[in-house]
């Protein structure tokens, strides 16, 4: 990969909630077309970092670059339109149908009126909900809601999809369906940042991994590179992760 292939560059990003520093001078780059994993235990600063990138926490320190240009999504709707967010919560309207949710968010994303139907249909297919499109979301299972949550985030074909622990609370079948959806999106060239604290998910999906711990980046690379860095060549991601953050994890426990 060359430097020009970097879609998002995070340069010394810092964020504090009052006196509590959540993210400490974090730097990394996300390359076009890759799934970049953001791995770390609860409280590592993953969601805060993602919120800064999404423009939800605008008063951060450091700099963001998107496709080589300064990126300020909080102040610029055009910049935000390049992002898709799949939040940890099921950010859907329960009393509206799957189709109505997709239609509404398509409008909010500025999808042209004559393209809304096509975008909604694509979203329903991605979520595997074509047959249940007219049902209210409240009647969906947890897995169906998760799939719709993903489809809403990807509705407007964003350049970068931000996924914040998108598999929380789903059964193995739905999780597998979500993985297939995400891999399908990558094949179509979608760039994604995927946060999770599930090692096997990150190892299966992500091309590279950023390991975060207590607000800092303590490693970047493929599973093999991280294992080598941790002094455990050939180990799986979980072993490498524990080797890198083991003491801290024991402290948390």
């Amino acid at each position, binding site marked *: 990969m060359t430097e020009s292939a970097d879609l998002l560059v995070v340069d010394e990003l810092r964020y504090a909630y009052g006196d509590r520093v959540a993210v400490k001078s974090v730097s990394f780059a996300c390359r076009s077309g890759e799934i970049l994993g953001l791995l770390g235990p609860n409280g590592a600063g993953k969601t805060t970092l993602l919120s800064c990138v999404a423009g*939800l926490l605008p008063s951060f320190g450091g700099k963001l670059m998107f496709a080589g240009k300064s990126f300020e999504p909080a102040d610029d*709707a055009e910049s935000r339109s390049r992002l898709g967010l799949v939040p940890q919560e099921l950010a859907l309207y329960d009393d*509206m149908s799957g189709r109505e949710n997709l239609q509404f968010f398509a409008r909010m994303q500025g999808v042209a009126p004559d393209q809304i139907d096509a975008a909604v249909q694509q979203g329903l297919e991605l979520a595997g909900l074509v047959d249940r499109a007219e049902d209210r979301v409240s009647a969906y299972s947890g897995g169906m809601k998760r799939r719709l949550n993903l489809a809403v985030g990807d509705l407007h074909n964003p350049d970068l999809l931000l996924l914040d622990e998108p598999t929380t609370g789903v059964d193995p079948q739905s999780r597998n369906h979500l993985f297939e959806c995400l891999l399908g999106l990558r094949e179509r060239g979608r760039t994604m940042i995927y946060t999770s604290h599930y090692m096997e998910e990150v190892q299966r999906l992500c091309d590279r991994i950023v390991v975060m711990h207590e607000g800092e980046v303590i490693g970047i690379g493929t599973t093999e590179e991280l294992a080598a860095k941790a002094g455990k060549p050939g180990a799986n991601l979980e072993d490498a992760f524990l080797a890198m953050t083991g003491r801290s994890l024991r402290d948390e426990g």
Partner: protein
Amino acid sequence: MNTWSAALAIARKDLSLYRRDRTGLLLGLLLPIVLVAVFGSVMKFAFGGDGGMMKVTLWVADEDGSTESERFVAALRNVSMVSVRPRANQEPATAERLRERVKDGEAHHALVIGKGFGELLSKGQEPPLTMVRDPGRQLEARLIGISMMQAMMSAGDGRAMSWMMGSMMRRQGMSEAGVKRLQASMDAVQNVLGLFASGSDPEVRSESAPAAGEASLDMTSMFMDLVPVQHEDVAPPARPKNLGYQLAQSVSGMTVMMLMFGLMACSSMLLIERDQGTLRRLLVSRAPRHALLLGKFIFCFIVGMVQLMVLFAFGEIVFSIDAYRDPLTLLALSVTWAAAATSFGILVSVWAKSTKQAEGLSTLLILVMAALGGCWFPIQMAELPWYGEVITRSTLTFWAMEGFQGMFWHQKSLTDPVMLRAMGVQWGFVLIAAFLSVRLWRKRFLGT
């Protein structure tokens, strides 16, 4: 995507959700109608549909059973201020039963007409009347006292005036000799009045007097009008005859208060969106961020206008409040109040840190403002100290009531200075609330 199209899309989505939320609809539309119906009916029945005096209940036991006592009870039934129980078609009550009623709190006043009432009254002497009462009910006592006097004057064709004056002055400490001289004078007065009423002596009638028998001599009215006051009615000619002040106040008050509750529930959807995560998603979308706040305002405003129109239509159909007499003024008042109440709801929502906090604070503020602003009872009737005036006029509800009562009761039009002032104060609040809401929105929701 521009701000307006995004705001309208959000408002349309919220309206769609609101329509599907049956509990929300129930609270927003049906509950205000039920409250307006209940309060309006209570006021109408309590004060009479013609805006007359409040009726109080007086239980009566006639132990005498004479023609005179029956005439007295019949006269009491005709007095507008009391409602006599048992009704004429019901079984008569006994004195013992009525004492039990007062003792049990089922009645506050019970009049016992003792044996010998008719005989003593016909002799012009003080008849045996006992009022069994709850001494704490002073307001009712005064109304019943006036009603008894009216009934006694009416039943006795004025002959009761002599002994009533005698009895009253005796209680004031007048000697028997003084009472006799007073009653002799009263008898002389009564005698002349009798000649006037019968027309038997042409010397006591002027040419302008109606012929004897054409109009009976109304002793009650004469007594009430002893102080020569020329009455000049200045009620607006367009005011419906059956519209009482309390009814108009009740319909306006309940409408003003319930709109605030309804819109508070709507505007808290902003906090619900934050809690369920959809707000984060919308903030990351292409829609201009202030459009989210504007969309909520438009949604609440539309719901508020619908609520007002439904409530006024209900008031028109059930209570004939003549709501649509001046559609332009009604529209202006409704737009103003819907905007002010929406601004209040949005301001509380962006200030509160949680839905629970918003609900608690808004309930407290709305109830206090409703009471101080005159939504529950006509606070304008009370003479308040200067600081009380300042407090009541500081409430949003006071100015909303000023506007609606100005239209319904005083029949004022849009261009009247009172109406312009009432609406101006509300629009002033809208501007201040909008300014504060945007600042809080930026700070609490956008983090800027």
